[in-house]
């Protein structure tokens, strides 16, 4: 789509995912004109969704074309969701390179399309509390967020009410209840874990809180439990921006979406104001400009920081938002301790269970919360567990000896039940975990690639030891058959796709990049609203908080317009 010559929009939003969708909706519904630029193409459900496709309908039967994945998506293929059915929702790594020191591997999973990664996110939606927002005041490490749970609570309420989050009400101080739709059921394996863990450790075991609808909600039907969310959803029964926030913005008549628009840098005018952006047409490689009174960078934490770093000009020699050198630093991603599990002989069966529940169980964070019972002074912050139990489909066939009709009958009748559990820990924000522009490498559109330098610190490693010990204790109590202990190493940095930080929020301009309203300290009309602004990330998934922050920022931007400050 070509824009009219020199039209100046009220707000220009870069990125159409969880964050950009919310900002666009909020400002458009308040009467502002919005231009959204998205680097990737639109996804057409009837063409691009593979919901309910069977393995026998695919050339590689669900196992994927390994040659193509290795050649075109050598990074993305490592993501569990980038498979034969869903690889189209992930970038081509050759077109979208990045670098890292060879001894500090970083796994950067990216989805560039209208909707960003919201097509294939895991939908887990947990509130942060002052355990996260004010963590520094509690344990002395790092910086507090400039905002509190009390300030964020109404935004969490509104986001949950709008998108639909299923969950159980538990009354936990460290993980507050929200505006929930009815919870999903637990599996039999999870119920067994609930009995054991609640009795032995005194920790609650609850269904995941997920942005899947358990009842019809605001014009969207309930989930039909096919458990193929990462393939797209024809009924829009989980939150993704193309079916929830972006249509709301579009229905205002104030919203213009330009896809295939790869933003290179901000166009900075005099007096510290952005006039718009320079972007490159993804398909023709032509350079173009778009103009607005206010610019919101919501391209995903690392993409947003990359755009700011690349926005160099005489007034901003180190990039926009980087007058203090903080931009790019304090990168975080959750680390996980994985691979633990075993069989549950008591649940072995000859009866096949229905499958399709798009969630498992969660054990909230207990270690180093306000309770004295689970304090561990070997590290600050804490972790949570998640897992599930399920029947094998045919994995046991590889282990059963013999062959022929009798063997197939055993495969059908002797269905093992497997239980798995992992722990996810809070990664501390450290200045030495940073991103910068690579001096040599450029992407397919000539934009400098990122160089990412990140590794886990001593606190993270100490926490991982405690996580491992707890998982082993749970495995022992569960009395699993053939238990597999967790892998000794922490997950690869970036693997959990919760990358946050690099443009952190703060009241002190010398220590942060954006203020409490997500406005860049050193530019008058530039906002960053995605995970880049996180100061800490707790041990819970960041997307719900990203949405709440984005809604709040959108409201603030609209208020600035109303007051004539833009």
């Amino acid at each position: 789509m070509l824009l009219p010559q020199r039209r100046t929009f009220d707000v220009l939003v870069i990125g159409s995912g969880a964050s950009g969708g919310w900002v666009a909706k909020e400002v458009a519904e308040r009467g502002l004109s919005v231009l959204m630029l998205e680097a990737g193409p639109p996804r057409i459900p009837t063409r691009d969704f593979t919901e309910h496709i069977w393995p026998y309908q695919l050339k590689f039967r669900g196992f994927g074309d390994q040659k193509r994945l290795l050649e075109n998506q050598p990074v993305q293929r490592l993501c569990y969701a980038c498979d034969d059915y869903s690889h189209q929702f992930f970038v081509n790594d050759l077109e979208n390179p990045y670098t890292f020191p060879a001894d500090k591997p970083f796994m950067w999973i990216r989805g560039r399309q209208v909707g960003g990664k919201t097509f294939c996110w895991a939908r887990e939606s947990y509130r942060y509390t002052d355990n996260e927002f004010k963590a520094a005041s509690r344990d002395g490490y790092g910086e507090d967020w400039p905002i509190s749970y009390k300030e964020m609570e109404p935004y969490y309420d509104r986001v949950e009410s709008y998108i639909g989050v299923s969950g159980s009400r538990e009354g936990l101080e460290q993980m507050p209840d929200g505006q929930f739709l009815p919870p999903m059921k637990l599996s039999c394996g999870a119920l067994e874990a609930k009995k054991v863990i609640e009795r032995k450790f005194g920790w609650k075991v609850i269904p995941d809180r997920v942005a899947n609808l358990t009842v019809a909600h605001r014009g969207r039907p309930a989930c039909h439990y096919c458990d193929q969310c990462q393939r797209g959803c024809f009924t829009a029964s989980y939150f993704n921006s193309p079916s929830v926030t972006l249509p709301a913005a579009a229905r205002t008549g104030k919203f213009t979406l330009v896809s295939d628009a790869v933003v290179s840098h901000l166009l900075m005018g005099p007096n510290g104001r952005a006039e718009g952006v320079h972007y490159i047409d993804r398909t023709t490689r032509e350079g173009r400009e778009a103009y607005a009174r206010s610019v919101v960078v919501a391209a995903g934490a690392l993409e947003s920081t990359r755009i700011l770093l690349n926005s160099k000009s005489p007034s901003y020699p180190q990039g926009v938002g980087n007058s203090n050198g903080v931009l790019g630093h304090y990168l975080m991603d959750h680390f996980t301790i994985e691979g633990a599990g075993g069989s549950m002989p008591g649940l072995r069966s000859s009866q096949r269970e229905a499958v399709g529940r798009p969630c498992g169980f969660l054990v909230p964070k207990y270690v180093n919360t306000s309770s004295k019972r689970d304090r561990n002074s070997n590290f600050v912050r804490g972790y949570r567990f998640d897992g599930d139990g399920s029947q094998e489909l045919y994995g046991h066939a590889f282990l059963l000896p013999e062959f022929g009709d009798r063997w197939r009958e055993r495969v059908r009748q002797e269905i093992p039940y497997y239980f798995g559990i992992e722990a996810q820990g809070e990664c501390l924000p450290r200045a030495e975990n940073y991103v910068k522009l690579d001096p040599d490498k450029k992407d397919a559109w000539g934009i400098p690639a990122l160089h990412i330098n990140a590794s886990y610190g001593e606190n993270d490693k100490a926490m991982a030891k405690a996580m491992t010990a707890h998982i082993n204790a749970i495995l022992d109590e569960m009395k699993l058959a053939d238990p597999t202990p967790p892998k000794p190493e922490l997950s690869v940095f970036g693997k959990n796709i919760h990358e946050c930080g690099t443009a952190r929020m703060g009241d002190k301009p010398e220590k942060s990049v954006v203020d409490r309203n997500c406005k860049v300290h050193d530019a008058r009309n530039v906002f960053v609203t995605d995970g880049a602004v996180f100061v800490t990330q707790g041990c819970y998934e960041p997307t719900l908080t990203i949405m709440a922050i984005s809604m709040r920022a959108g409201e603030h931007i609209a208020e600035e317009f109303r007051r004539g400050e833009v």
Partner: protein
Amino acid sequence: MALDPFDLRDEVTRRQWLLRLGEIVMLAGVSGLIPESALLSAQENAALPPGLYVPSAGDLVHALSSGHHAFTPPAGSETDYAQPPASPFQPQFFSPEEFRLVTRVVEIMLGNIDPDALAQTTQWIDLWFHSADGARTAAQHLDPLHRALAIAYFGEATVRDLETADPAAISREGIPAWNKLSLEKYGHSFLDLSAPQQEEIVRSIATQPSANSSRKFLEAIRGEAIRGYYTSAQGLKELEYKGNAYHPSCPGCDSGQQS
């Protein structure tokens, strides 16, 4: 009390949804009731910018029924859908005689299965052998940083396995070894043996050391036969697989206390 416009819309569309789905489900032959709310029209979709969408009952039912009927891949899709094989099927990797041997081995392994499932399974095995060379070459040419990342993710042994996997060599050495064993034991190549003799050869090879070329070939065929068969419609039906379906309520445990 004020009416919530969204609740009202849900009630209105619930009726539309039921009516529409009832019709389409019957036409499509999909079993199960789909009693959910919210159906917005195709016109509303058309009014949105490309890439935005509203819930669609028609698209859901079309997808639910696609596994039961001839399926035409959507134009422009990036998904690698299966194409109908040429008739008669021409193997890409195996020679016609080798392919007959593979087919016979799969018959022995899987027993009495549907001919279509057998054909799908053997064609999958041929494709897997055929594509392995390209995958290995791609693995050997990974960018050093991508290789370092893969090692961090999978471990070095797994990455090396990918770089050295050579099913062609396994086949090249394995098939002659099968025939040699058949000749030694019964005086004929494998395909010329009687069914009980062939089964005896397979049993005998299954007990050989794992480094033996006959055994390696057997294990390669067995692994891909399992993956090929249990991803076929007949294999999934035999497993009584109850996923990839429309469930009107959340599957879960009915024999315990949920909260």
